[in-house]
């Protein structure tokens, strides 16, 4: 069904989020604050989570086992799939890939270049399957490592090879969990410390509320609600801007089509001045207009404030340029 972009309603959109941080900072607990999560405990680290925050889990020993569990009939009670950790998930994928085809591996058991490409694509395929077919929120937890870049120390997600780029690709949000003084925070904006991913008003560094006996572990649940509330508003605003942009570009193109000579160019000027530009339509239109004027070999006379056919002298001068 072909739909108009202005009709988009994203209030109930499922989200894909990447959470990274140092070991022990509370990433898994944070990940399990998403709505009705299934904890895919690839790291076998559930015992490190306080019992009251634990959720139903699987501890797969192979990638085949994960795929066997991720079928609609087994997931009716869950809204979110938490992959903990993504690095370990990719390790299982790597073993699966090499078993599937030895050309994806090297003699020492690591992935070949082709293998990295295959596993990267498989990661994106798995995320797409969970998101589009299973219709679940996805949370992928990654350990962070420090990376020296000159005098700067950067945080990066701990994944081998080029797969680290594929893991960002499907994500709506990506944040780094860090301690600022006594506060645990998650940062969604790019900064000197890390490359993150924020959209739909989820930007900057957000304080993660401290958990106590009287509070619920619902940070991501609330964040997802906030995202979807802003999404609806932002989609509406973007749709308005895009509609204005497309309208003015269509009007501009119609004006350009009407210009055939100096007279029609002069007649078009008031219409061009009346165009109400949106986004970068002014730059885009002006370049097309100048190209059209050049194509018709017209010159603007500043004194008369009109276009005229270029005189032979002007043409000669142009040819000499």
């Amino acid at each position: 069904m072909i739909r108009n972009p202005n009709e988009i309603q994203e209030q109930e959109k499922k989200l894909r989020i990447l959470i990274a941080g140092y070991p022990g900072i509370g990433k898994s607990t944070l990940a399990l604050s998403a709505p009705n999560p299934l904890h895919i405990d690839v790291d076998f680290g559930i015992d490190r989570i306080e019992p009251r925050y634990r959720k139903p889990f699987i501890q797969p020993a192979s990638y085949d086992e994960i795929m066997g569990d991720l079928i609609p009939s087994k997931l009716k009670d869950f809204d979110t799939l938490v992959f903990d950790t993504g690095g370990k998930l990719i390790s299982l994928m790597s073993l699966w890939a090499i078993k599937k085809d030895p050309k994806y591996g090297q003699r020492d058991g690591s992935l070949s270049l082709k293998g990295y490409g295959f596993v990267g694509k498989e990661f994106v395929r798995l995320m797409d399957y969970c998101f589009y077919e299973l219709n679940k929120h996805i949370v992928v937890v990654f350990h962070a490592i420090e990376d020296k870049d000159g005098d700067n120390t950067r945080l990066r997600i701990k994944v081998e090879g080029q797969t680290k780029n594929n893991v960002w690709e499907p994500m709506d949000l990506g944040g780094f969990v860090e301690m600022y003084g006594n506060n645990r925070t998650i940062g969604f904006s790019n900064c000197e410390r890390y490359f993150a991913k924020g959209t739909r008003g989820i930007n900057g560094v957000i304080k993660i509320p401290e958990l106590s006996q009287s509070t619920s572990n619902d940070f991501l649940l609330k964040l997802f609600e906030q995202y979807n509330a802003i999404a609806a508003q932002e989609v509406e605003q973007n749709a308005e801007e895009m509609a204005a942009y497309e309208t003015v570009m269509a009007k501009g193109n119609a004006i350009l089509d009407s210009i055939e000579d100096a007279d029609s160019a002069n007649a078009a000027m008031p219409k061009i001045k009346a165009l109400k530009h949106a986004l970068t339509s002014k730059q885009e239109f002006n370049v097309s207009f100048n190209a059209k004027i050049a194509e018709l070999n017209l010159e603007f006379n500043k004194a008369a404030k009109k276009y005229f056919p270029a005189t032979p002298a002007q043409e000669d001068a142009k040819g000499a340029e």
Partner: protein
Amino acid sequence: MSRYLLTHSLLSSWLWTMKESPYEDMTTEKDSYAEFISSLNRVPIPTNAAMQKGIDFEDLVTDILNGQGNQSSNWYEAATQVANIVRGGLLQYKARRDIKVKGFDLLLYGRLDALKAGTVYDIKFSGGYDAGKYIDSTQHPTYLELVPEAKQFTYLVSNGSYVWPETYRRDETPSIIPTIEDFLDWLDMKGLMNTYKEKWLAL
């Protein structure tokens, strides 16, 4: 009043010099300071193999947009992905904007690979890529200053097989102005201001 041209490439070359401190390590393969002085003197840079690959990839994108792409190219699929993103946009747009920094009249200049519906696109061909590779680049802060109407800047990075878009929104992009201020101060301190004024005088 004279005004002077300023490009992201010149700022980038200068920042590279600052980062490398070549004289602290004589084993440094490239003398970034010498490279910067060449850039400051507007000495043309010979095209190396990596640059040529980038040019060839962009040419393939352009050919695809013109319906003439070589389908037998190993890069065809990736170049098609890039072409589909920038299709309908303004290609190779030369953007200029007058700015005043520390009393200097500067003409900020940049050639945009594509401009479309509020997004500036730059096509990169890179053998190695890490997400966030361009976080420190002066390109997106400079180009967003050049095109105030643009809402975001997207690097379309490809190794010929994959395409990784890396987007920076305006609200998460630092202003380029403080970098320009530092650059002008540094030129003054190093006695290179006259060279800059002579070589980068805008006509």
